[in-house]
């Protein structure tokens, strides 16, 4: 074998090996998806749930998996976990009408009646959530960002265009500022005030991070809240109406997976 042939063989192997690995993984995953769908269709929701969960554990990240998993949980009456996974699916497909209907179904069934967010930062962070994913908002903001800085660069390099560009720069600047504030607040809320769902039947909310503190009120399954602080085994939570308290870790689950 000549040197050239050996080199070509090595290059081909380097290209084909990862492809083969991906194909093998695809095959396994597809089999699990098919089995899960069949289990659901035949009414074996527990098996379907286990299989969808195993897909997520393998790193499969798709709105369909979260949606189907949520549907399974809804069928077995675990509305907390169902809402949690519908919310996770909404992070991928926020404009999906069927998804909105399912979320509304659970919100209607849950015991805690919850209004929209009242805390300003939470409102800002979620104001475009029903229509735009974080990626889409980031892409739009970046486009306007790019446009504004491009025009700014043009006006710096070509002073004769400054007068013409000034109104465009002002309008684009206002739009850019608005989008950046929306994106920034959304990223902040996601990171420091993440949304969570009560996934147990009932959870007591205390005035401090221990069960010896005063029990202020209780939340039922599928109630939605935000986590602001973690201390020991307790989480400080804030409800959409602004009420705060401490709950035991493990009673709620973050939507951010």
């Amino acid at each position: 074998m000549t040197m050239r042939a050996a080199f070509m063989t090595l290059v081909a192997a380097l290209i084909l090996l990862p492809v083969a690995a991906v194909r093998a993984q695809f095959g396994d995953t597809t089999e699990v998806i098919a089995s899960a769908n069949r289990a659901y269709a035949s009414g074996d929701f527990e098996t379907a749930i286990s299989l969808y969960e195993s897909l997520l554990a393998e790193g499969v990240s798709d709105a369909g998996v979260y949606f189907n998993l949520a549907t399974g949980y809804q069928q077995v009456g675990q509305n907390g976990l169902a809402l949690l996974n519908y919310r996770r699916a909404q992070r991928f497909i926020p404009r999906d009408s069927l998804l909105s209907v399912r979320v509304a179904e659970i919100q209607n069934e849950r015991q805690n009646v919850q209004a929209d967010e009242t805390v300003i930062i939470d409102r800002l962070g979620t104001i475009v959530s029903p229509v735009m994913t974080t990626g889409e908002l980031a892409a739009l903001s970046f486009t306007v960002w790019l446009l504004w800085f491009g025009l700014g660069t043009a006006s710096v390099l070509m002073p004769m265009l400054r007068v013409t560009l000034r109104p465009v720069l002002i309008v684009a600047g206002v739009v850019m500022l608005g989008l950046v504030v929306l994106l920034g607040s959304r990223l902040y809320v996601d990171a420091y005030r993440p949304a969570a769902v009560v996934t147990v039947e009932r959870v007591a909310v205390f005035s401090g991070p221990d069960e010896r503190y005063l029990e202020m009120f209780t939340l039922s399954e599928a109630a939605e809240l935000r986590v602001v602080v973690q201390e020991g085994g307790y989480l400080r939570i804030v409800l959409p109406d602004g009420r705060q308290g401490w709950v035991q870790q493990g009673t709620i689950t973050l939507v951010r997976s």
Partner: protein
Amino acid sequence: MRRLFLMLCLLPMLFLMTQRVGAQECVPPVDTIRLNASVDLTAPYVGEQIIYTIQIENTLENPPSFDPPPFEGMWRAGRLEITTSVADVCGVKVSVTTSQYILFPLRPGEIVIPPGTLDFSLNPVFEARTRVLSNEVMVNVLPVPQLDAPDSFGGLVGYPFFIDTTVGRTSARAGDPISLRVKVEGSGNIEQMPPPQLPLPENWRIYQQQSDLATATEGESLVGSKTFEWLVVPEGTGAVEIPSIELSYYDNNTGIFRTIFSEPITLDILPSENLPEAEVAAVAPEVEAGLPALRPIASVTGRQNTAWLWWFWLLPPLVLMGSAGYRWQTSRAARQAVRRRQSGALRTAKTNLSAVTRQRGDRAYKDLIMAVLTYFGDRWNTDALALDQNEIASRLLDEDVDDEIVQQIITCMRGAEEGRYAPDDSSPPRALVKQTLMALIAVDAAGNAR
């Protein structure tokens, strides 16, 4: 009468004696806080429940919280209800709080539970906190007798326990997984219980799933249930059986091993449909009437880390800053060149006029005019050839240069113009050059003074 006298004498003595006896019995509490730790069982088996009790006697209005010891070598499963009682000792209210922790020893041998701590301060603003320690507690943990232990014993200690097996569905197609759940419930160390052994055929595929635990306290005992879950893929078709599952535990009350069994389950496995898996996965599956619809799972790729994309946000501001920097640099260089030209205007004029003194005739006058124009061109950073006498005079007057100096410049320029039309070739126009130079020096001085 004598009796009455004796009684009258004895009564005060009796009163005094009663008072002294009462004073001896009433001892007011000395310590503000006193801790006492104990266990209900000092020689338990590994995995047997013991209760660690801490009694806090204190005279504070708001007793501080107790920090339990780390319980190394023990599994802390929970705590019982805290009880508080108040007693009056010599007019001082003493509160007795009892906290109880449920523990399970994890290894045989002597285990020393170190003291628990309690920090308090009578006046949190002005006084440092004082730490009070409880006593140590020693526990001699015995090993569970291994000689008679059945194979299905996995360390479960307590009494009683129950086992139950369920499946997600009893009928499935070959190759389809079925969820199998084994639920063990009872009173004991159920939290540390390992999964029971599954007596399934070797050719069945088994995937362990998560386990689910629920515990609660009932009286002074920890009770609960642990559910283990598997996905099993049976081999073969027709009626196949999930055999009875066996589990043994050590009954610490009677000191014997007990074994419990689950009911066997029969499955009906149908032949496979042999549909291509990719086809089934890629489309939204059809479901039975009445069931909510599912979504197709379009993407089966793993998550991609796109955090690095955020770095692109820096690019436009950097380009703008680079452009502004470039613009500032070029305009600064241009300003410096203008300043150099303006500051060197008189020097250049002197050099040019000096050269004129070596010329004769028309050339000399032409160069003289050019030297003057060049001076003003440099001074005002403009094209020298675009200037004329009127423009120069007008600009100088605008700069508030003395009228007389302006007239001198104009006179010199006119002299040079006239010289061009009637040139004297015999000698260079030294006088005119000198006059022009003096006028330019005066203009320059006027400009600098301004």
